[in-house]
């Protein structure tokens, strides 16, 4: 029995109370961590498209709110729950939306990164304590968690299966980038697609995930990295991450993106990566890859309920389609490898950070992303 068990902490959090409404910085109470949990003091966090999607989604049940969003972050362990040995107070960690319990058949298999010990599901509370939250607001009402992280708060409670240890030499803001979007993009190139030197890669959507996929393809030595985006500014930005060619679908006249990619690659790209989340683009990506061995990787989350339609004749020509979460990476096993690569100066993370704000300006971070003006805006808790 501990002499001084951890107490609840009062702190600030950006609470979302209604779809699309600006976040309110409020006082919340963060309960101590229970078994398998750790309470983190967030150092910095960033807004990822999935935060925006859920933030403005209409038609969610009333019980979804109030909620603390945010799932890309880095923090320091403040206290741990009973029986936790994996991390201890003072450790710098990145909380991640995807678990790696280390025990289940899927965690033990090299082929999967989808932990079945703590399955990835929409949930509003702690994964092992179904429905329970560790947040209450000033009126004592429960506030929901988001994607197992809830990083738009000075303190949060996360299950240890969702914590990745951060290399001491990693600057915290760079580590936080690797807790979601950039790992997803790089993972797609390095693991899900496993891009070989000399391959041709086409990337649909040049947000942070798409640009990270380009960076992954670059370090693998892809000979051609074609970016597809409606925003012409993305060409210059993309070049920083290895892009060699650019297609703006509005500037190719009567041709289709598929035709242009086939022309550029002599029949179709070796790998096509979809980074937006639109079934019609998934279809374009699929048809832009080469018969015989072309692989399409789907990273985007389709939010309109549209089905992805595949022509049987086209797929029977030897094409494959793979979808994945976090680019196929096992968080605890693989994210540290990306951190090491950054420390070794092999990957460019710095250019993903285009803005920085203090916690009280969190709404600015949302605006910048929605307006397409930022890649990643770091939100510092202590500013």
């Amino acid at each position, binding site marked *: 029995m501990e002499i001084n068990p951890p107490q609840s902490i009062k702190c600030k959090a950006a609470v979302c109370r209604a779809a699309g409404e600006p976040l309110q910085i409020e006082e919340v109470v963060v309960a101590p961590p229970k078994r398998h949990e750790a309470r983190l003091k967030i150092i910095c966090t960033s807004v990822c498209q999935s935060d925006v999607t859920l933030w403005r989604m209409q038609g969610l049940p009333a019980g979804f709110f109030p909620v603390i969003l945010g799932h890309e972050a880095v923090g320091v362990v403040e206290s741990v729950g009973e029986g936790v040995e994996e991390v201890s107070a003072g450790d710098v960690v990145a909380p991640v939306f995807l678990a790696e319990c280390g025990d289940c058949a899927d965690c033990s298999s090299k082929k999967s990164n*989808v932990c079945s010990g703590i399955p990835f599901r929409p949930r509003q509370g702690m994964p092992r304590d179904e429905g329970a939250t560790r947040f209450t607001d000033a009126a004592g009402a429960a506030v929901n968690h988001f994607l197992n992280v809830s990083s738009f708060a000075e303190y949060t409670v996360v299950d240890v299966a969702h914590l990745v240890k951060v290399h001491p030499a990693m600057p915290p803001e760079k580590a936080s980038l690797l807790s979601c979007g950039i790992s997803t993009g790089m993972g797609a190139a390095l693991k899900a697609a496993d891009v070989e030197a000399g391959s041709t890669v086409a990337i649909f959507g040049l947000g942070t995930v798409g640009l990270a996929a380009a960076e992954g393809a670059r370090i693998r030595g892809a000979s051609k990295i074609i970016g597809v985006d409606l925003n012409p500014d993305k060409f210059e930005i993309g070049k920083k991450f290895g892009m060699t060619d650019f297609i703006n679908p509005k500037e190719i006249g009567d041709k289709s993106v598929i035709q242009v990619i086939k022309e550029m690659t002599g029949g179709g790209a070796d790998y096509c990566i979809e980074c937006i989340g639109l079934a019609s683009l998934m279809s374009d990506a699929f048809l832009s890859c080469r018969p015989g061995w072309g692989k399409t990787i789907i990273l985007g989350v389709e939010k309109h309920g549209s089905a992805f339609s595949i022509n049987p004749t086209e797929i029977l020509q030897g094409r494959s389609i793979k979808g994945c979460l976090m680019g196929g990476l096992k968080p605890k096993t693989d994210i540290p490898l990306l951190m090491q690569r950054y420390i070794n100066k092999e990957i460019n993370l710095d250019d993903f950070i285009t803005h920085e704000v203090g916690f009280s300006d969190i709404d600015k971070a949302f605006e910048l992303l929605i307006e397409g003006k930022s890649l990643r805006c770091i939100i510092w808790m202590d500013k």
Partner: protein
Amino acid sequence: MEMKPIRCKAAVCRAAGEPLQLEEVVVAPPKAHEARVKIICSTLCHSDLTFWRMQGVPGLFPIILGHEAIGVVESVGEGVTEVAAGDVVLPVCLAQCGDCPDCNFQRSNMCSGLPLRPLQTAMPRDGTTRFTDAAGEAVHHFLNVSSFSEYTVVDVAHLVKVDQAVPPQIACVLSCGITTGIGATWRAAEVHKGSSVAVFGLGAVGLAVAEGARFRGATKIIGVDLNPLKFEIGKKFGVTDFVNPNEIGDRSISEVIKEMTGGGADYCFECVGSSALVTQAFLSSRRGCGKTVILGLDGKGTPITIDPNELLAGRTILGTCIGGVKPKSDIPVLIDHYMNKEIHLDEFITHEIGFSEINKAFDLLIQGKSIRCTIWMDK
């Protein structure tokens, strides 16, 4: 030495869905890159049926169907050194030219030197036919083989040499359907030891998938078929469990398979050719690592609809031609496995008939009574 045309019998298809007529045809000598082959025996594959029934394709008929066969080279065209008269060969619908980027790439079997065009009804390199009927009219080729004929002409890129010691009726079935099924577990899916496999459709291709999965060490092989008799038959080929979609009440096939496999099968194979079934197969595969392989050809071209979020959960879906197998490189490996008694193929052959009874083979397959019916040319 000048080669002459040969007069012989062929089963000519003159209209969609009509019984085949045995007629006299004239088979021209082979040109450069070609060989004229005397067929020993041939078998009927579902794809023959699909094209036989196909309405609304201009210029398809008259056509000599058949693409699963074994024969002896009778003569070769100019410059052919790869095969010689007397060689036993399997004609295969898919080419392996050996020269193009796909033939040189380990992970592709889709030869781009001589790409497969299912509606191509002539010789692949010059677009002309080698068959004429009694009235002197051109008769079309089918899938680069046309084996429902005593003699046919095939491009050497489509020929696989076979050892004389292999029983011909066994080698014959490896020229398409059985290779597709076994090949899919090997090249397309790389089924691993201890895995779970679900096979949708227990025709020859599906049963061959089961046999291939068994050989590769899968420990649970679930067969899905509407015909309850297929369970007993399937057991001969490694099927361990059976699901009849008509006997699962309100539940979907994917629900049942997920239950049987603790979350989804590692590998799912669609061997019927129904886009709706492909969706079920896909949903039956395990999150994180599940692979769905499409082998069946949907004759109507109906699009396959996939829920992107189920894909995002870590599933893969892929399609191949003949299971991803490179014919010349890989079929001999399968033959070796058979000769070493590592894979069992004898039980695929359920019936035998002579050439004049060829329409019986169609009836047996349509009625679901046969797996493979060997059609002997010399009987």
